[in-house]
């Protein structure tokens, strides 16, 4: 009997101990404003996301030099969600409820954003998402500083139609949501422009696909039908290097079959010998080669911060720069870091971007940006060959998909809705 009691007591103690480990530390005096950084530092996505963590640290350091925000210093809270999607949700929850961060800058892949979305909505946090994505989403708690399909894919296709007179299209992508959606939109768009179904070839490959021999040879075959052919690539990060190496080796020249990519930037090209890739294209809202004083200044600071004079910059970094500056401005406007106030004051905030203009946060939580088309140069940089004359506003609900055609998003009162249906006049999607 005694033994049982002792066992019970021991077990109870253990359980209490276990539970207390999870209880938050007693809250300290709030003399700083915490900013969460939720980027993978290990696993498959570390390759892209680590840079974004660094750029955030730089921005925060700089802001602190300028005196912080609302008279308080900013304190970065870095966690590693390790390219593990459920871990993203867990870490987001930790940042919001344990560390009580004022805003989170993070995520790269769509799935990580999808994973944290309910957490941000539940705990009313603020997430700045810096990467180009498929659209079809608008959340009150998320600010999308990367490109929506209309800020990247459609202008790129327009460029190819107008300047390269492309008639046949290969839509090659990694099999996940972003390429699928983008290609759906592009297919609808191209068909609207009179391209026949047999002149569009769609191809999906798994993540990290490394043997591109057959596919590149198929592309060559498809491209030798006598009509000008181009490849629109939504191939994901890791698979790009072997893809471009194979393109180079099989002699697919940009003059014959140009490849325009939406996920290949300066960072990705840093791992490839670009000589055979001369002239292949990419569409972004920013290139390192943008020739403005703001950009030169940013590059200088970045290379000094990373102590690497060759370190490149890229589009998602600029998105974080814009997002961070917007947040700072909105917090100052609202005079508080409280989520609701900041969320409301963010809309309409305008900050300079690095390509010489001003980007504004729109009511749909997407921003306005210029669209640039660049050609790969020998030095791994992009030569900008086209730039939209004005800014393009991110369109979260594509006009080219039947189910999202009539949806809009406007987070201002009184509508305050992420999926307002203009046909039925109701919030909540298509309605039944």
């Amino acid at each position, binding site marked *: 009997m005694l033994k049982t009691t002792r066992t019970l007591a021991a077990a109870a103690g253990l359980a209490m101990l276990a539970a207390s480990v999870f209880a938050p530390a007693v809250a300290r005096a709030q003399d700083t404003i915490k900013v969460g950084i939720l980027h993978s*530092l*290990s*696993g*498959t996505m*570390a*390759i892209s996301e*680590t*840079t974004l963590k660094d750029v955030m640290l730089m921005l925060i350091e700089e802001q602190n030099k300028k005196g912080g925000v609302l008279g308080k210093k900013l304190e970065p809270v870095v966690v590693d969600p390790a390219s593990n999607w459920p871990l993203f949700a867990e870490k987001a929850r930790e940042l919001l409820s344990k560390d009580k961060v004022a805003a989170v800058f993070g995520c790269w892949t769509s799935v990580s954003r999808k994973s944290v979305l309910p957490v941000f909505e539940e705990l009313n946090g603020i997430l700045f998402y810096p990467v180009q994505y498929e659209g079809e989403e608008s959340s009150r708690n998320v600010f999308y500083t990367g490109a929506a399909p209309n800020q990247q894919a459609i202008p790129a296709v327009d460029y190819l139609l107008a*300047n*390269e*007179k492309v008639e046949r299209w290969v839509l090659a992508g990694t*099999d996940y949501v972003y390429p699928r959606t983008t290609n759906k939109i592009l297919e609808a768009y191209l068909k609207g422009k009179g391209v026949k179904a047999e002149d569009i070839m769609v*191809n*999906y*490959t*798994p993540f*990290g*696909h*490394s*043997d591109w*021999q*057959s*596919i590149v*040879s*198929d592309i*060559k*075959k498809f491209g*030798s*039908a*006598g009509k000008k052919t181009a490849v629109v690539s939504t191939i994901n990060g*890791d698979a790009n*290097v*072997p893809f471009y*190496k*194979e393109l*180079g*080796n*099989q*002699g697919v020249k*940009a*003059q*014959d079959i*140009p490849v325009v990519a939406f996920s290949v930037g300066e*960072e*990705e090209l*840093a*791992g*490839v*010998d670009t000589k*055979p890739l001369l*002239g292949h*294209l990419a569409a972004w809202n920013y290139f390192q080669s943008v020739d403005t004083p703001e950009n030169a200044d940013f590059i200088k600071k970045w290379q000094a911060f990373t102590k690497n004079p060759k370190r490149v910059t890229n589009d998602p970094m600029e998105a974080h720069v814009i997002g961070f500056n917007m947040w700072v401005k909105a917090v100052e406007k609202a005079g508080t870091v409280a989520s609701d106030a900041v969320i409301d004051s963010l809309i309409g905030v305008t900050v300079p971007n690095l390509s010489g203009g001003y980007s504004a946060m729109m009511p749909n939580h997407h921003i306005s940006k210029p669209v640039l088309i660049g*050609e790969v140069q020998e030095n791994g940089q992009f*030569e900008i*060959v086209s730039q939209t004359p004005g800014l393009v506003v991110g369109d979260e609900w594509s006009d080219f998909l039947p189910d999202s055609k009539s949806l809009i998003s406007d987070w201002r009162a009184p509508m305050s809705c992420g999926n307002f249906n203009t046909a039925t006049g109701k919030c909540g999607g298509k309605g039944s």
Partner: protein
Amino acid sequence: MPRALRLWAAMLLVVAATAATLSGALAADLKPLVRNLGAGGFADTEAAIAALAQTGDPAVVPVLQALEAGDLYVRKEDREVVRGSASNGGYTLTDPLGGAALGEAGRGAVDKIRINNSLRRAISAALGSLTLMSPDAGARRAAADSVFKTRNPDGLAALETALGRENDPAVRSIMEQARAAILLTAAGTPDADRLGAIETIRARGDQESLALLNAVRSAEGASAAVRAAADKAFEAVEMRLSLWGMAQNLWYGLSLGSVLLLAAIGLAVTFGVMGVINMAHGEMVMIGAYATFLVQDAIRTYAPGLFDASILIAIPVAFLVSGAVGVLIERTVIRWLYGRPLETLLATWGLSLVLQQAVRSIFGPTNREVGAPSWMSGSFELGGLVITHGRLWIVIFAFLVFGLLLVALKRTWFGLAIRAVTQNRNMASAMGIRTARMDALTFGLGSGIAGLAGVALSQIDNVSPNLGQSYIIDSFMVVVFGGVGNLWGTLVGALALGTVNKFLEPYAGAVLGKILVLIFIILFIQRRPRGLFALKGRAVEA
């Protein structure tokens, strides 16, 4: 090819320079045309290129080449088009037409004339018609190819003149094909010429010919005879291409198989021979790739002339580095775990995490660039096969490594000792073999071979901390499919899986193809629970 072009460019410069001095008057006529190159947008530049090409003057050639290379600038003060080469902080300017020195200019004083793909195409078309009669056979060939592609009827006269003078049979045949292409595309060609052209194109027999023939047979207003001939030729070419397509698939399979072989063969030693389930095998491959990167980086910095040899130099370095890491791992971790294969799985899994993160900390998480030496880039055609040099060398390298390993294990004292230790440790030890040292060396050998795989993979894949992870599962599949402990099994397994994968890919797509291969392996293991080349008889149960 690029080398030939460069050579040709250099020769041409000389020729052009003399031509320019001889015909100063002509150069003066060209001047305003050249000036138009810097007039404004891409469309203006394109028009200027066309105008320059129209002159048919060889002096234009170096100007266009400079434009293509991105060496032409507009001087801001007088909108003059100049040729610039970078020199400390600014540019040294020369006249693109005569080559006369025009002094220096600061970075802000000139604007680069930007070119894009359509300009590049325009330039190569222009150069094509201008260089058909170049003294260099390679250039003439490139020019003829370019004419074939553009099929510009205006170039027919120039092409026929060139054909009349051409002596080189290879170039001649391309020119004839180009002529046929123009004849088939142009309106109003007599039927007899068309029929002849169809025959020429049929003989060419590649994908472009197919497209051309298809255009002919579906063209409006073609006569029945032409249409029938085109139909027949189309079918013949299609047939030929589909046969070559099979061969091409076989080659792709062989090439994928050899990559799998390289990745798996080191594992066949550590896992197959020693029984160590080495989950850090992929990281040994990765270390080999990073060693290659380091070697190449050092060569780029200190001895750029040796760049083409960098991969060759990297081979022994990668072997030694990965091998040394392997020996270190064996001495510190694995040797405590012999006879407990499962524990080696856990410990090496831990090691693989540590190694990945270590590389990420040292080299950063992003990809590193490993360039291809000139002898490994580009491709050549063998009949209807397109074979890239890089892949060909990897296939050869894989077989070489396999052969050497086989010889090392079967024909040398070292191999004998390894086999003795793995078969009967006590007996080997009693015979004076230092078993501990043999273990370390064997593990080092397996790791070193993984490092060699890293050298090859650096040519076709990302050099990133994740490199190893993407090959580890495939490697285990290959070794198990082939039969653990049998090198020949690994060879056949790798090639079989590679080929099956490549034959499935066109029908099922890359993803489904891979899934089917995995299901095939699962089912195959049911039929032969010990792999393809299993040991039979009583020894199995021992």
